[in-house]
């Protein structure tokens, strides 16, 4: 594995640990933001266009 890839994976792991350590109420707010974003993507039709291409 290259150094660059190793750093990327470490950085992702650190980010996951930081997010996991947040209080539940803050994590729920993030869940709400993620849900709103998923709904916006679904409503925009991007998902359908992308699935037609694949």
């Amino acid at each position, binding site marked *: 594995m290259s150094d660059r890839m190793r750093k990327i994976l470490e950085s992702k792991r650190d*980010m*996951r*640990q930081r*997010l*996991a350590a947040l209080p*539940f*109420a803050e*994590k*729920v707010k*993030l*869940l*709400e933001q*993620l*849900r709103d*974003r*998923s*709904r916006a993507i679904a409503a925009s039709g991007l998902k359908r266009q992308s699935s037609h291409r694949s």
Partner: protein
Amino acid sequence: MKATFAVINQMQADGVIGKYAIGGAVGATFYLEPVATLDIYIFVSFQKAGSLLTVSPIYDYLTARGFKAEKEYIIIESWPVQFLPAGNALVEEALALAVETDLEDVRTWVMTAEHLTAIALQIGRTKDHTWILKFIESGTLAPDKLDQILARHGLLAKWEQFGHKFVEGNK
């Protein structure tokens, strides 16, 4: 989501449901990093009508208060919520031992990480396996506690198979 749990708590206070606990992706988020989800799974002790478990009282209670049912969900304060019966001993135990927490002063209960893992193993879909791997990777599981749960509910062989297939194979 806080408002959603306030409604569920009121339904509990009104005697429609007994003890409940959050499972699924929202339950896992209590222990892990948040992952996008569109719904909330609530495991619940249902009132029993004869020998059948029934969700009817929940639907009746919520629809009478203006909440809409959509397929297997009821939309409560913008979140689709699926109420699932504690249909076996493992889920009953998970409900009994759920962890109390609060969302900005709204009290709620989440299954333990070990019970979420055992239930995911018992269900066994691909997405359940993904959750198990996330729990293992996070280091949040108490191995002794998990072993005891798996042994009590006859899941040790399945756990071993899971380990061979998904954990040892990646070493």
